[in-house]
């Protein structure tokens, strides 16, 4: 994480905005542990997602940056703004965080923020102004007495937008290496449980991703069953690979060394995406793994001759007899004619 001087580079390289944002965020994230001793308890106040981190970067620096910088940055901020709908509560958190974290005069930051916020459309100015002062006043005693006042601020903000924070936390908490989690009402607020809860949210997010990846997992609720499905899927995929490798081993001695002729029709057929699904193939191998074939695409259209040949060459295949029954299931043998001409 290199501390970048934004002002120096900014006006020169507008195309590298996204890069700058990365570094800005890195710089910002590098800061909080330093000035504040107990990082977890401080950050626990805010439920800081990446969108808020973005705003954070922009708010405290309007004075130092030149105009083109602010404009370009605002475009970036506006980009991120639509992703998180309810931002007013977050905005206040950001300001409190930045005021305390930067160590600069809270007055300066709050004074400068109204200037910048006028340029950014999604955020309502009124919310900002109402929040700045109480937030600012809270942060000053906060650094002295971390325990009690933080809870006050936390409870304030908690009542304000509890639901929205719950929704956002699961999305954003997994992105940053420093997890910013809000303590929900009625839940323990010590650092251990916070960290564990953040971790749980990370895990749940990954589980959701996996659910989308594995077919047929969307309906299943419950971690154990979903994991069951995932395990079954992986096992079926591995079994398929083994079967296919057996087939390839049988076919191998007949590899044509004229690679060019092999690959031009392959490239053409791959890009066409014109493959019919072999239903019986999947039934043979593993019951119920048909979704895989639907995802993968289909066999090339010259399957007809292929399968007939398969019967002869793959003596090890128990399903060889089944496969020949597929031979009639195909359409245009265009590619086979192509191959004939090239061989």
């Amino acid at each position, binding site marked *: 994480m290199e501390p970048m001087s934004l002002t120096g580079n900014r006006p020169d390289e507008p195309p590298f905005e996204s890069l700058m944002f990365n570094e800005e965020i890195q710089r910002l994230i590098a800061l909080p542990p330093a000035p504040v001793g107990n990082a977890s308890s401080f950050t626990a106040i805010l439920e800081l997602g990446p969108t808020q981190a973005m705003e954070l970067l922009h708010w405290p620096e309007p004075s130092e940056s030149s105009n083109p910088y602010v404009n370009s940055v605002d475009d970036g901020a506006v980009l991120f703004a639509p992703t998180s709908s309810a931002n007013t509560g977050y905005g206040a958190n950001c300001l409190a965080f930045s005021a305390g974290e930067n160590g600069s005069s809270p007055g300066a930051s709050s004074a400068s923020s109204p200037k910048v916020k006028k340029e950014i459309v999604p955020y309502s100015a009124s919310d900002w102004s109402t929040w700045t002062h109480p937030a600012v006043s809270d942060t000053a005693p906060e650094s002295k007495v971390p325990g009690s006042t933080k809870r006050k601020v936390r409870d304030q903000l908690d009542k304000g937008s509890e639901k929205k924070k719950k929704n956002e936390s699961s*999305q954003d908490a997994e992105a940053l290496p420093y997890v910013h989690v809000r303590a929900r009402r009625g839940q323990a607020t010590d650092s251990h449980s916070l960290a564990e809860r953040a971790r749980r949210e990370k895990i749940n997010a*990954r589980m959701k991703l996996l659910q989308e990846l594995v077919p047929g997992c969307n309906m299943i609720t419950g971690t154990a069953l979903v994991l069951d499905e995932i395990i079954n899927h992986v096992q079926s995929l591995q079994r398929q690979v083994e079967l296919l490798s057996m087939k390839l081993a*049988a076919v*191998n001695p007949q*590899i044509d060394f004229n690679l060019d002729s092999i690959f031009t029709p392959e490239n053409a057929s791959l890009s066409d995406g014109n493959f019919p699904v072999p239903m019986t193939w999947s039934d043979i191998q593993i019951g119920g793994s048909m979704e895989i074939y639907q995802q993968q695409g289909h066999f*090339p259209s010259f399957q007809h001759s*292929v399968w007939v040949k398969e019967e002869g060459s793959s003596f090890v295949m128990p399903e060889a007899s089944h496969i020949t029954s597929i031979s009639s299931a195909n359409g245009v043998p265009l590619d086979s004619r192509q191959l004939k001409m090239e061989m």
Partner: protein
Amino acid sequence: MKTRKIGADAQSSDISRTEVRWRSESSQRIYSVKLVEALQRAIQNSTPALSISAGSRAVRDVADRVLAMTAKGRTRWSRAILASRRRLSILRRHRKVKKSRASRINRRSKPLSAAAEDRTRRLPAVEKRIKVLSQLVPGCKGAPVTDLLEEAGDYIAALEMQIRSMITLTEIISGSNGERTG
């Protein structure tokens, strides 16, 4: 994940990255080409491997290795596949004996904090499945659950691509042979 700082679209970028990497036609084509070359080399090297199981295992290893190379990246399973060549296979045989003896111990290292572990993860059911999954995905034995889940996602996508390209290859090769002789 230190590289993903801007996580506004963390989830969607995660999926799209995996998808893009393993579902694109270009990656499949690259894999197929490399696979054919590797297979040809393997055939030339080991002509006496006439037994069916040995041959198929060789092909499978080649395919997995080429897949891991195509991954060329930061996934644990690809590194584990590339690292585990012959020297580790011997070790694995010894380890398998030891593993079978060691029973699955129910670990209760930390006392349950009241609000924290209100999820079902501490249930032995989920723990068992996590363990099974870690055994399935290569190179993820002692990995934390988050990493394991991410590796599993990438591994699944990669396996699907591998299957697709192997099918296409079988078709083409045997198809070309059929056309020539038939």
